[in-house]
């Protein structure tokens, strides 16, 4: 059965394929267009992020009413989880746009852009304060774990 918002997803997919976002590239996706993997280069923050990072975006059946599930991926020898006060060491991201601030008018593209700018504006090479505890009990994807937004200024 196809997704109720198939046309919308298809449109987003076509635009993502064109790779119009600088530094962001669609690496792979599944046939149902529910899982996308991206490689992202942080353009303006070379001190902290020299290597590109990898992201996975999962669309649920409720997309775009509900936000997609997004996390950073680790691949030994290729990609690392970027150091950031809102990024847990298992790749989970604490970002308002992936939770309460999401509206159906946002898109995969807007998430990628906001993640890129989140990394670009970062100056702290550290993990969230509750990283060790969170990672131990975290579910597979972050949205179910009920984030407390630590510090909106970062």
């Amino acid at each position, binding site marked *: 059965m196809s997704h109720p*918002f198939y*046309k*919308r997803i*298809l*449109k987003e997919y076509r635009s993502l394929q064109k790779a119009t976002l600088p530094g962001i590239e669609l690496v792979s996706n599944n046939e149902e267009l529910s899982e996308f993997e991206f490689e992202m280069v942080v353009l303006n923050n070379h001190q902290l992020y020299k290597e590109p990072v990898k992201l996975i975006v999962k669309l649920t059946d*409720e997309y*775009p*009413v*509900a936000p997609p599930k997004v996390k950073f991926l680790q691949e030994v020898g290729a990609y690392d989880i970027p150091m950031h006060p809102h990024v847990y060491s298992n790749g989970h991201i604490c970002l308002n746009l992936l939770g*309460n*601030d999401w*509206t*159906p*008018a*946002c898109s995969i593209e*807007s998430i990628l852009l906001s993640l890129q700018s989140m990394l670009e504006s970062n100056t702290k090479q550290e993990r969230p304060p509750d990283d060790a505890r969170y990672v131990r009990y975290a579910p597979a994807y972050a949205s179910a774990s009920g984030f407390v937004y630590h510090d909106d200024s970062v």
Partner: protein
Amino acid sequence: MDFDEVLMMLHHCKWQQEELMDRFYDNREKLLADCGINKSNDTVCGFNHVSSFSCSICCEDYSAVETFSLSCGHEFCINCYGSYVRTEVTLGNLIRCMIPSCNLSIPHMVTHGEYSHNVLLKAATISHISGRKVNYKWCPAPDCDGLVHLLKARKTGQSRLEDVNEFEELVDSESADLQSIPIVLCPRDHEFCYACQYENHLPCTCLLVKRWIKKCNDDSETVNWIDANTRACPSCTASIEKNGGCNHMTCSTCKHQFCWICLGEWSLHGTNYFRCNSFSSDMKEQIGEQKKVKRESLQRYLHYYKRFALHESSMKGDIKTLDKVHQKMSIFMEEQSKTNPNILSWIDVQFLQDAFRALTSGRKTLKWAYCFGFYLQKGNYADVFEQIQEYLSRSVEDLSKIFEQIIHKDNRGKSTAIIMNQKLDIMNLSSLITKRRKTLMECASSGLADGLLKLEML
């Protein structure tokens, strides 16, 4: 300002009137912007039927579709807007336009034509209440959706309860200050205790209620009875009650034969069990004494519990009777108003409502007075309390009897006549009940305060 805008501002200020006033007079423009109210734009907010529309959410191209937009002009198809609103409404906040950079809010009126069934208002109310659990309590009566809002909490005298959380402490407090028990009335006339959310349990304190209910629910009393009245078979440990006959026992379960007095094997006794008697007379007396104490305390509990339970079940009976009386009265009044409207009005039968209320609350007080009595230490003043309780009980029973007569099947067709004939009696009894209830409460409250009555926490 129209009604919708005021609603949105109140909603934004979390229904705090003072905060709204402050912010409104402080910086009106900023408040309006924060609330997402647009006064300048000419585009009308609302539903439109449009032909050839492409929705940017679902990316469908419609030849004809209903759309919605706020006065910002961000227009989406009704399906997309609908599913967005349905998700957002659960949060209980104002719902903004779907475009993240656009701050406009959806007016409450849009979510439903009528305010009484407004989903957004409903969700906002629920989230408001659940965020302030100490200030709101749902009525605990079954089938009642009454809500009580605590405006100001007072202790007796001057000291105010600054923090309503103190009610939670009150539930466990040993203090016997009956004046401080917060009995409240829900919009549907159910009285309950704000602290422990149980029905009006005066003259008992919340702690007594808690213990009493635990005691009644526990099997501990059954265990006490078994302990006091039975002995375990020395071979298979089945409980045996000796209901007469000689002391030569044969266990019905395992057929073991033993002596009831020393629990030794019967075969050792031979024909002469008096030897057993002289052998362990000390022991026997000791055990006997223990059992006597247990039996007495059990008897005492059962005395109070029976009466407590009796009034509880009577209350249920009363409520049924009262319903029937009420029905009869309604039918009667309807007929009356058709034939000769000037003779009786509803005000003339108002006394019935008062009597219903007096009866049920009288029963409730009586019920809890038995729980109170159980924990009460014996003494002269306790006797006075029980005497007052006795008086109350008498007038409650009298009133209950009158109502029972009214609906008795022998009196079919005469019920309204009985009501009107007994009007004076009913009125007298209900005011007597109210008075005696009050006296009972005062007796309990002042007795505890002056140390004349003492509670025993068993």
